[in-house]
């Protein structure tokens, strides 16, 4: 009995000690009286604080409040990855404020600091398209695709840039590759149809527009494109039917409905 009590006490003491050993020893707080070190710490604290405020504002879509925070961070020139990220977030704020030229400059600065920054490339293409700079959009899209050849966004972005720049061959290639990995994407079939049409390949264009409509029957732009192709290839009656369908169900696009209606009527009187 006495032996049992002693053993239990020893066991209890052992576990107590073992548990106590699991606590980590406190690390000394880094302290310095060196002025440059203290300044660097103060800058880092400001950067962290402003990132928090700026991101919170962006998440509330308060872009005008976010922009000054990131402008200040950019002025402080923090190290990577904070530098390129601040330029990116500032570019995003400017883009949402309609300052596309300033936004492009910030995304460019982010890529200069971090040449593999895909999100910055994606957004730079977006603002370049918005401000009509097809040349830069194309150069950035080429770089984007060179780094990420399987990226759906890179393929899609370069495809629409190529269509806007009358480079149907590149658009055909990019949308074809996008469809290979996303075969049920109606929008990509529509864009590929446009590229085929620009290349004069009417049968392929017809197939792509029909595929797009099979995947999304209320896709008014694809039906309008189909009607245009039918008209171009001399199938006026079929074209008139397709224009009529767009006019009756434009899927919210009233401008397209008006144009389709006038096309339908013009075919009727010719």
């Amino acid at each position, binding site marked *: 009995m006495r032996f049992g009590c002693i053993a239990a006490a020893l066991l209890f003491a052992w576990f107590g000690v073992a548990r106590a050993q699991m606590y980590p020893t406190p690390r000394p707080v880094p302290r310095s009286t060196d002025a440059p070190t203290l300044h660097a710490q103060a800058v880092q604290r400001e950067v962290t604080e402003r990132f928090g405020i700026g991101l919170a504002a962006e998440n509330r879509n308060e872009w005008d409040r976010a922009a000054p925070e990131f402008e200040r961070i950019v002025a402080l020139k923090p190290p990577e990855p904070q530098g390129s990220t601040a330029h990116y977030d500032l570019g*995003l704020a400017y883009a949402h404020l309609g300052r596309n030229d300033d936004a492009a400059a910030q995304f460019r600065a982010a890529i200069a600091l971090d040449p593999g920054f895909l999100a910055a490339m994606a957004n730079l*293409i*977006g603002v370049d398209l918005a401000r009509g700079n097809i040349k830069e959009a194309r150069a950035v899209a080429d770089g984007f695709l060179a780094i990420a050849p399987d990226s759906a966004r890179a393929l899609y972005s370069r495809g629409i840039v190529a269509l806007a720049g009358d480079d149907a061959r590149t658009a055909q290639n990019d949308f074809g590759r996008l469809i290979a990995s996303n075969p049920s994407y109606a929008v990509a079939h529509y864009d590929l149809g446009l590229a085929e049409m620009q290349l004069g390949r009417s049968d392929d264009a017809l197939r792509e527009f029909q595929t797009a409509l099979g995947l999304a029957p209320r896709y008014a732009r694809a039906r309008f494109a189909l009607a245009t192709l039918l008209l171009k290839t001399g199938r006026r009656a079929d074209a008139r039917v397709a224009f009529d369908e767009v006019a009756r169900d434009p899927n919210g696009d009233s401008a*397209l409905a008006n144009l389709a209606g006038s096309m339908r009527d013009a075919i009727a009187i010719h």
Partner: protein
Amino acid sequence: MVMSRRSIGRFLFSGMLALAAAGAAVAYANAPSLDARSADALIGSEPPALLAPITQAGRKGWECKPEQAAAAADRHAAMLPGDPSR
């Protein structure tokens, strides 16, 4: 030689007729054909929406959704424009 009033009237009427015909011819020549009119309305699909803000931790790592979207091969993960309603 003096022109009669009737001759002047005929002359003016012929001139106006010729001008009207010329105007109609120019308008016809400049009018786009039907298929050209609709082809002008064919434009590529819209650009994708801008990718979201990134935290100060930067683009590297699994937490950065915008960078993942930029690299994704799947169109949903890439946040490309959605298909029109069925």
